[in-house]
């Protein structure tokens, strides 16, 4: 008999949608549809959905469905790596600062406050300008610009957990700070950093689109942001479907991850009574 949580995930539409995007990303990672996504085809220029495949083609004749599929791989990569950087940096530094109420805490809080004073988008532009366009730049810039929020939450929660009886008991039994952090604090912070991971993932995917639009993202990669960057020229030529489907893809992934993080309400089971 399945557990309650497995049953809930199975029936959650957000989980299904996320699974669809994940499978697209895996397929793209194995090279499925790469040629259709990247190579221009002169005989298939700007075909609408239906005439040019399921989602049509762009003004260079590239298959839009294949481009969106490869874009999902980039979105997952950027979202996961940026979120992992932000959450790991924030959690480790937050636990360290929360445990050590001394000069280290002051120094880390000062550093976090200084970084937080710079608007995130400006910090990302700064990193992009220094490192040059590319996927690595995008991931690093978003991750480094975002860790401060997680740091502050984890630090506050660590300070709260320090006052709990079991931490006091562990300290009385001779547990060092490293043991406390690894065995007690970080596991107890799991719900917090799991939610933070989801939030950072969504933010990273959205920001990647903006960075690609501004010209600081990977130039040749078929990311959703690159598709949106070409939208003004496409719209002038009457080609509206790339903007529509890229927007739906971005919105769908953001909604599914956000819903799973928020604990979206499950659909009510249908009554079996006649």
């Amino acid at each position: 008999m399945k557990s309650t949580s497995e049953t809930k995930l199975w029936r959650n539409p957000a989980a299904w949608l996320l699974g669809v995007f994940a499978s697209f990303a895996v397929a793209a990672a194995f090279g499925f549809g790469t040629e259709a996504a990247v190579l221009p085809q002169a005989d298939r220029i700007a075909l609408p959905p239906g005439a040019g495949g399921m989602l049509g083609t762009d003004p260079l004749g590239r298959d839009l469905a294949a481009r969106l599929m490869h874009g999902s791989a980039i979105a997952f990569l950027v979202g996961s790596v940026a979120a992992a950087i932000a959450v790991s940096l924030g959690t480790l530094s937050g636990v360290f600062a929360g445990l050590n109420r001394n000069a280290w805490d002051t120094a880390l809080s000062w550093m976090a406050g200084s970084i937080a004073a710079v608007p995130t988008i400006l910090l990302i532009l700064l990193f992009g300008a220094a490192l040059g366009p590319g996927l690595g730049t995008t991931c690093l810039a978003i991750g480094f610009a975002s860790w401060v929020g997680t740091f502050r939450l984890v630090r506050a929660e660590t300070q709260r957990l320090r006052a709990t009886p079991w931490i006091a008991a562990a300290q009385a039994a001779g547990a060092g700070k490293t043991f406390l952090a690894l065995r007690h604090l970080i596991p107890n912070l799991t719900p917090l950093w799991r939610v933070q991971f989801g939030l950072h993932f969504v933010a990273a995917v959205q920001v990647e689109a903006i960075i690609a639009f501004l010209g600081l993202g990977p130039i040749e990669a078929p990311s959703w942001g690159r598709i949106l960057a070409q939208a003004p020229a496409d719209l002038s030529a009457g080609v509206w479907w790339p903007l529509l489907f890229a927007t739906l893809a971005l919105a769908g992934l953001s909604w599914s991850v956000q819903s799973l993080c928020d604990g979206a309400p499950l659909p009510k089971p249908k009554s079996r009574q006649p």
Partner: protein
Amino acid sequence: MKGFLRSIAEALAFAAGVALLLGMVLDGGLLGDPAFLRVGRHADEDALGRARVELGVWKQWQGNALSIVLPPATPNLQLRTRGPVLILDDHVFEANNLEQLTKEWNALVPGIRVHASQPKLSAKGIAIALAERTQYLHAGQRLQLGWAEAAPVLPRVFSAVARLLQFDLGKTLDGREISTELARRAPRSLALAIPAFFFTTLFTLSLALFSVLRAGALERKLAHCAAVVMAISPLAWILALQHFFANTLHWFPTHGWQSPWWPYVVLPVLVWIVAAFGGEFRFWRALAHSLAQGQELQSARARGLDSRALARRHLLPQLATPLLVRTTLALPWLVLGSLLLERIFGIPGLGDWTTQAALSGDREALRATVFLIAITWLLLQKAADAWGKKLDPRWGGLL
């Protein structure tokens, strides 16, 4: 007074932190060679060398300081560095100057032709100029190596920090005073951002109060609508609404900035309201909801107070503090305007200028903008804390 001075000191400490961060990124090479910002990653060695001298990374640069020609039928060789030391395949050079280096080359590779333009220069300079790159020597081909003298990192970083803390903003890449550019562009960004922020807050706050006080199906529908709007990228909203209202219906100008300026601002303001609606509505709704659950409001409602009076007498006064704080904290970012809106609608404001600076590698412009925005935000954060506590003694501060 003591508290006020302490707040100012904290803000200045953070400002120094911001200046240090900018110094490390833009001058200290924390994220790679600052010369790449100036001339691009694919510039030739001479252009990179001159850029590094201009930026203060190197004190001196000389192209073609050492010329090497391998004799024919010689196996290819690999020249690399490890810190200030030159290594040829597995041989570590021990020469102090270029004259000794030339002799060491001649002893190592029979028939090789090595010429140093200035023999008294230190051999370490060749390793510095190579900058951790690997060069390959091919038989019969000439390899020309430059020479450089590095400037110490810390004085370079701290001199940039000191200039920034004295508000010496410098000049752009094309020689214009940054302070003049800021004074010229900031009003255009404010012309867009202030009405956009005002109408967004007015609309979302009113709708949030209305939905919370009515409750029921309408509130849930508005919440779902806000979630959907939030999920759609702001970039998509801007592009779609610009195309529909400006390019298709021709109700507004597509892009540009002329006198009178207000027609060019109307559509961007509307787009801002739509794109920001989701997040703002959810924020005000959550806040109003938590206040509406308070016992005093439940009691007032039970005694027959209608929704309008409830909002006017109880909710709005309690929302005054978060409204003031939110507005205060938004001010510095309003000066920046919206990077995307200015870029897409062609409004020559501060946001558009900052984006151009990032793309062209104008580090002085980036440094000045980022620093001014950050220091303004820090000072206003302290002011918001103080005002918040005066308005509502229960206010616990921002952090």
